[in-house]
């Protein structure tokens, strides 16, 4: 790790990491707490974990939430990337409208957007449920994704793609080898963000849930009606471990596919010249 060159930044970063993980440590510790009231340590137990793992609500909730988060992330990425590609060759006026719609989706408070979609779906007799939730999430997830992808796109040199085209690459090949590769960090970041947002969302999920299975955050919300129990913490930790495992599998699968490592720097052009 490159620390010596930037000691101040390194120091702050260490503090940031501690700050981010501190609550997690509390969650982990409390999940083994025999004391049901969050008022001190009452002894070690794994009882809450067995309760959580046993709980059908929790299992179904996790399944449901995963489906929603993955679906919404993928949809949002598709929307963000296609939109960003269009944006590059769009007229300034069209761009302004497009950007305005992105900002608007982010500015609109979620509770308003969720209620509006609820009323709309009721009016057009669209069944509430998982599809409705995914749509609801994608409305704002796609905006966040678009912002991140565009921040990256703004610095892409079109000369790279023109060069590829001149060398005889088809538009699809150009996209795959040059554009997509260059955008990859942004795509990963945006996908992670969208997934994280959906994974944790309560407001939109509550409104658009209908009679479908309950997403996990809503299950947890219902469980804390009277008190926070260590079981909640056990659920939180289990969910985190599970998602990390899932992500690791995804990353490993992607890495074995061979494309991991491209960073869109100038070096890529050499690859194209070399005909790879």
């Amino acid at each position, binding site marked *: *790790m*490159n620390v010596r*060159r*930037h000691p101040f930044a390194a120091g702050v*970063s260490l503090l*940031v*990491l501690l700050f*981010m*993980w501190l*609550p997690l440590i*509390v*969650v982990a510790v409390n999940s083994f707490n025999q004391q049901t009231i*969050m008022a001190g340590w009452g002894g070690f137990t794994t009882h809450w974990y067995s309760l959580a793992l046993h709980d059908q609500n929790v299992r179904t909730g996790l399944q449901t939430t995963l489906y929603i988060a993955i679906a919404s992330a993928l949809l949002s990425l598709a929307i963000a990337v*296609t*939109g960003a590609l*269009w944006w590059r*060759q769009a007229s300034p006026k069209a761009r302004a409208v497009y950007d*305005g*719609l992105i*900002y608007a989706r*982010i*500015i609109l408070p*979620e*509770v*308003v957007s969720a*209620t*509006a979609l609820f*009323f*709309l779906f009721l009016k057009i007799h669209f069944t509430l449920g998982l599809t409705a939730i995914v749509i*609801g999430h*994608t*409305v704002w997830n796609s905006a966040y994704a678009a*912002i*991140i992808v565009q*921040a*990256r796109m*703004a610095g892409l040199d079109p000369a790279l793609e*023109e060069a590829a*085209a001149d060398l005889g690459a088809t*538009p699809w090949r150009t996209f795959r080898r040059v554009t997509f590769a260059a955008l990859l960090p942004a795509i990963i*970041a945006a996908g*992670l*963000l969208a997934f*994280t947002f959906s*994974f944790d969302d*309560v407001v939109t999920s509550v409104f658009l849930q209908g009679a479908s299975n309950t997403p*996990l*955050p809503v299950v*947890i*919300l219902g469980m*804390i009606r009277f008190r926070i129990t260590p079981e*909640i*913490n056990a*659920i939180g930790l289990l*969910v*985190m471990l599970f998602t990390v495992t899932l*992500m690791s599998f995804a990353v490993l699968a992607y890495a074995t596919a061979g494309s991991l490592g491209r*960073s869109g*720097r*100038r070096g890529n052009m050499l690859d194209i010249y070399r005909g790879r």
Partner: protein
Amino acid sequence: MDRDQGGVAIERVAAPPPAAPRRRVDSGRLARVALLIPTLLITTICFVVPLGLIALYSFGSVNQVDFNVFFGWTTGNYRAFTSSLYVHTLARSLVLSVSTTLACAVIGFTFAYFISRQSPKAQRLLLVAVIVPFWTSFIVRTYSWVDLLQNLGPVDRLARALGLDGHIDILYTPWSIGIGILYSYLPLMILPIYVSLERIDPALFDAAEDLGATPWRQFRRVVLPMAVPGLIAGIIIVGVPALGEYVIPEILGGGKTLMAGNILADQFLQTGNYPFGSALAVSIMVVLMVLLFTLRRAQPAADAQ
């Protein structure tokens, strides 16, 4: 028509345009429109239409029993929130949100900068390290802050061990709300800034150094300009939702600090006064949109393409 030396008419035609661009334009146009379809679908049907509904509601009135909204044309909903009660709350929200966003920007920028100077592998590791805590539930995380910040909690005991008299008294004050918001939004600030900074070629730094630039000058001339799009994106992504936050003030603020988000959420969740809530939402949106477009106008980098 020109004539060559032999008297044959030569049509002077324009040189054919280079093959590649022509190929791009023809199939390009169709492709460009096709590229826009996903965005159009999601924005028109699922956003503009509901937004229109909200705007209509803001001029309507509601039956407080069955919460049916009537379309009417009244500005009563807009006039209602000029009362001092709401103005006071909005001002307090603004101060809290703005200061938290600024703190978030400074800290987030530093972290993003640090990540961007690492090897690709380390970068990914650090990014993941900052996001993984978010894969627990928001509710669980926020309540763990209650545990952390309460008097007789770990932070309090540490402070007292270090010599503090009395208790830290942070929980259930605006400070704990600030910490909660900072915590919840830091990754959102870090990601876009990182994405902007990551594409700075390290060679640029070496070049600048070779030319005798001090670290600060390098930073100012190389790093900062590149970071601006990401920074602005981050401030928007963090600042705007921070204004509308209502869960964190409830949990970490002990319900004692009413914020704009609480008032807004209340209309939709508790009282069912959709017209008033819609008027609030529309007003907030208009103000923020104007702000954002002014920001964009003042920032030339984003349009350079």
